[in-house]
């Protein structure tokens, strides 16, 4: 069934969009990522104009992460306090990131920088997670006890706060810093930042993997809701018809994803996320390295970015 999208001004297959939304929703509920880094290229591929794809998908992520958070809230795997701290940091970071982005844009070649950023970050994060979770799986197979949490310099910092759900008693400074840096990256790279936030929470803050997913989704809701409003009021590029088609699949997928996630072991979850991150990374790297079949690309409008 073909549906004509009023803002994108293209006609697309409704079932294809429902399916896409569903798959990305499952990943979102399982890993606590927004899924924007997967959805954007898929929407480009089926012919949605890039500006509309980026804006609309932010709206769809609001729906799937809200659905996911509710599922995680019922299992008490959302650290609301930690989420709020990260969110405050994230908003500050996003504001700084927008300034940096505009500065880079004035220098030109921002697209390239964004892509290189993606490849480097995804490669490093994915690689580290993959190695770590592989080791963890081997260790549990051998039956050795899990490594004790290290008490490093992080624990000597002031402004300590108790995060009951995560079972942590740490200074608020590291979470705020993590929030700020992810916010900056998210604004520059144009994504919600879930796939950077999740590993940062696991490895830098030492949060349990189960809690990380719900907490990440919690803060993604606010970031993407803000992005949606920004795009709707400045660029008029949110296509609500497209969003509805994607989010119907997305919210159902997120529920299924959350259900799968709770049945899996933490290190299995981490290794799957690592594989996914590495796959996206290599796809982007190949795009940069291989000779494209069409050297020219078209952007509507005189401006573009």
């Amino acid at each position, binding site marked *: 069934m073909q549906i004509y999208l009023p803002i994108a001004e293209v*006609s697309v297959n409704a079932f294809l969009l429902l399916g896409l939304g569903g798959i990305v929703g499952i990943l979102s509920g399982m890993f606590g990522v927004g899924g924007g880094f997967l959805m954007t290229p898929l929407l480009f591929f089926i012919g949605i104009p890039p500006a509309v794809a980026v804006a609309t998908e932010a709206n769809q992520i609001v729906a799937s992460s809200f659905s996911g958070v509710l599922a995680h809230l019922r299992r008490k795997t959302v650290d609301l306090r930690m989420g709020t701290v990260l969110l405050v940091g994230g908003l500050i970071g996003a504001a700084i990131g927008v300034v940096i982005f505009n500065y880079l844009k004035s220098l030109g070649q921002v697209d390239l920088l964004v892509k290189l950023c993606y490849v480097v970050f995804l490669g490093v994060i994915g690689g580290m997670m993959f190695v770590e979770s592989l080791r963890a799986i081997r260790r549990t197979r051998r039956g050795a006890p899990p490594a004790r949490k290290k008490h490093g310099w992080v624990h000597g910092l002031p402004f300590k706060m108790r995060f009951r759900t995560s079972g942590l008693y740490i200074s608020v400074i590291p979470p705020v810093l993590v929030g700020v840096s992810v916010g900056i990256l998210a604004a520059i790279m144009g994504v919600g930042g879930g796939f950077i936030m999740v590993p940062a929470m696991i490895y830098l803050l030492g949060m349990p993997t189960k809690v990380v997913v719900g907490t990440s989704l919690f803060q993604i809701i606010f970031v993407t809701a803000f992005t949606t409003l920004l795009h709707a009021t400045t660029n008029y590029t949110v296509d609500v018809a497209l969003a509805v088609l994607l989010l119907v699949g997305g919210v159902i997928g997120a529920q299924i994803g959350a259900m799968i996630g709770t049945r899996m072991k933490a290190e299995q979850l981490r290794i799957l996320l690592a594989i996914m991150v590495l796959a996206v990374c290599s796809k982007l790297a190949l*795009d940069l390295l291989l000779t494209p079949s069409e050297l020219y690309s078209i952007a509507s409008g*005189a401006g573009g970015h």
Partner: protein
Amino acid sequence: MLRLAILLSLLALPLKAEEVVLGLSRDKVAITATFEGSEILIFGAVKREAPIPDIPLDVVITVAGPSLPVTVRRKDRRFGIWVNTDTVRLDAAPTFYAVATTGPLDMVLSATEDLRHRVSIPRAIRSVGAASMAEDAERFTEALIRIRREQDAYQLRENTVSFDEQTLFRTAISLPANLTEGTYPARIFLTREGRVVSRLETVIDVHKVGLERWLFTLSREKPLLYGLMSLAIAIAAGWGASAAFQVLRRG
């Protein structure tokens, strides 16, 4: 008496040997939510006062979408990776363009007439000043045409106008589903030996209706309300799915 009057008035008119009389199967295209493209039948006749001349006529029909500025970028290899290096901005390129003819375009229309009336696809794109943006600016125009032809947005349909008895002509232009809103000018040229002997222009009105119209207007006129509505839908859907799954698990 009446016949005489008509005859006299016809004689009084400046004598134009051949003229186009035109019909369209529809002059309005409504884009609804389930719009899947549309086919428009363009038909007409040649009106003459004199017997059919020996040299045959040809018909060229064009339908164009609204013209918009377009940016074309080209990738090049730098330090081993492919990056966008050159950019050319074209002043105006139609979002849709179709040319239908009775024969090969370069046979039925001379280069001079093509230049004057902007009939062929490359001529329909306005690229003043493009040459100053890159050394080989015409390659960018070619790329635009190549990409849009693959999407069926640009169509060159030679030999698709049927022309009976040098008088009645007709052709069908298929408008794709990915249509931009606006007025689509349709032009009909009668040519003989490459020269235009008569032309006629009309418009096809393409516009969104119903829900499509309402959403589009809302997004432009009350963007904040539109944005909040989108968020409300998202939150409601997220909550709805969660509630539904809870019921499912209990049941």
